[in-house]
């Protein structure tokens, strides 16, 4: 194929949840829209992030729950065939990425496969994959950069050895390693350690800090840490992974070092490095449009998702924290609508977040400490799951719902939930925060019995000093 040049109103670079959502909305608004993706539609999220990880988690949970339900009279000895699991997961991913492609086409988005780079302020050059596939240039009025992020490597652990896994490699696994070392106890590290432990691996987590999930409060992360320990996950806190060697039988010895220089070693079949993600801008040739990432590599944007250039937007992981799919999509919508001339802006008060560990964690808005720092007089209510009828009938009583409000008028500021289905329960509190709801609104809304969401109501009642199922101090 030779060079061709076409023109479009909006070019979207990157087909992840930031980019494809932006492209669909731009097309819905009547703009001629071209989406360029170098790899797979759906981006990290659908191909090697949110979706495959949740598929693995589902299967691991089904097996783990059945294996550990003797208390309720269920006896099973589940075996997980990792090859079959991987194939099913691939099927789920294919269906969703195929769906993204269809939705784009149905909405009239032009799809181009290839790697885009800026040529000048109104032109991109697209290098098609594969030899002899040639180049293509697209002239555009406006561009939306949605190139996402990739896993960070640490010194001594490049991802080119098949024994050194990024999260992407872990989610492409076709077998379960007998021994797995996980470097990093952030949310990706913890989701995957728990999952691989349930799938049968002996997991050791190496973390420089002294607890899992440092972004969360101690009583939140400790529930997950304890459960992971119960599943057999070992923790090496205060240790940083410094390198690895091959053993005689082709396995790995992972070396770690404490701040004081004490060394330890861990033998494993695989080492998963999950220490963070970094924005992807290096494929874009930003120089050509005189745009530079900030000191953390992100493209800075305003609340309209605009970069320093009026006609170039950036959304999703490449545009900064929190690096979450739903934040990427929400920004994608704003960018598309602004590009279409609408008066849109990213004005969500809050972005909920979930960690799909066991139990799940979900948070929204402010913690008690953050509320105090922000100058509020925080009023906090809690409902422990052990007082929840629904939790008891699920045999899942570790965790709690905490609601943070401000004492004056009782406006809901945030919530921290550690519970089965926490990721679903948080939706109600997110709506409460967005709507400017008060504790009485949560408490005064009738909640179905028996559900875990009653705990949201009870936590609000507890804050008001009116709980029925917990004692109000």
């Amino acid at each position, binding site marked *: 194929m030779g060079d061709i040049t076409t023109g479009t109103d909006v070019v979207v670079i990157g087909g992840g949840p930031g980019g494809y959502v932006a492209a669909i909305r731009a097309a819905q608004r009547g703009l001629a829209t071209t989406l360029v993706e170098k790899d797979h539609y759906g981006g990290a999220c659908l191909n090697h992030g949110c979706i495959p990880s949740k598929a693995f988690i589902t299967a691991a949970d089904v097996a783990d729950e059945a294996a550990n339900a003797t208390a309720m009279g269920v006896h099973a000895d589940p075996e997980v065939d990792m090859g079959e699991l991987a194939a099913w997961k691939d099927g789920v991913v294919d269906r969703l990425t195929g769906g993204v492609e269809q939705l784009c086409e149905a909405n009239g988005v032009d799809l181009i496969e290839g790697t885009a780079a800026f040529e000048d302020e109104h032109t991109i050059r697209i290098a098609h994959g594969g030899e002899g596939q040639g180049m293509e240039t697209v002239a555009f009025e406006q561009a939306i950069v949605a190139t996402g992020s990739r896993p960070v490597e640490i010194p001594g652990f490049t991802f080119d050895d098949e024994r050194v896994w990024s999260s992407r490699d872990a989610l492409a696994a076709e077998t379960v390693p007998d021994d797995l070392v996980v470097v990093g106890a952030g949310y990706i590290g913890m989701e995957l350690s728990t999952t691989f432990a349930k799938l049968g691996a002996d997991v050791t987590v190496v973390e420089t800090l002294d607890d899992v999930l440092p972004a969360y409060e101690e009583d939140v992360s400790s529930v997950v840490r304890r459960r992971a320990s119960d599943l057999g996950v070992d923790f090496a806190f205060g240790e940083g992974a410094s390198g690895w060697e091959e053993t005689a039988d082709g396995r790995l010895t992972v070396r770690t070092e404490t701040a004081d220089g004490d060394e330890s070693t861990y033998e494993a079949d695989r080492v998963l490095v999950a220490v963070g993600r970094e924005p992807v801008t290096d494929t874009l040739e930003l120089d050509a449009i005189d745009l530079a990432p900030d000191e953390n590599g992100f493209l800075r944007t305003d609340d309209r998702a605009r970069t320093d250039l009026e006609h170039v937007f950036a959304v999703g992981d490449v545009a900064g924290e929190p690096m979450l799919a739903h934040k990427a999509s929400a920004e994608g919508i704003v960018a598309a609508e602004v590009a279409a001339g609408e008066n849109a802006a990213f004005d969500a008060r809050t972005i909920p977040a979930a960690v799909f560990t066991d139990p799940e964690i979900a948070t929204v808005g402010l913690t008690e400490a953050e509320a105090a720092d922000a100058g509020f007089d925080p009023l906090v209510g809690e409902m422990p799951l052990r007082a929840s009828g629904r939790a008891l009938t699920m045999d899942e009583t570790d965790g709690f719902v905490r609601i943070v409000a401000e004492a004056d*008028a009782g406006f809901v500021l945030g919530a921290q939930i550690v519970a089965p289905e926490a990721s679903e329960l948080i939706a109600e509190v997110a709506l409460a925060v967005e709507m400017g709801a008060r504790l*009485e609104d949560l408490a*005064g809304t009738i909640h179905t019995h028996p559900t875990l969401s009653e705990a949201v109501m009870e936590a609000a009642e507890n804050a008001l000093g009116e709980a029925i199922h917990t004692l109000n101090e």
Partner: protein
Amino acid sequence: APVDESEPVVVTSEGGTTRERTLAMPATRRLARERDVDINDVPASEEREGEAFVTPADVEAYAESGGSAAERAN
């Protein structure tokens, strides 16, 4: 929340009699009861689903102005 702030509609009851139905958030209803105000008497600054929608501020304003249910009953 994306609340429509264009034009506050003041929906009051005809000729001083009370409305039959008023929409309000749970916290507002409770506030009205705590302030001993009949929510159907409170002048509404918004309208929803074609009916008067009373906000906490409406209740406070009405209570401050002395329009309490107890008084009316007397």
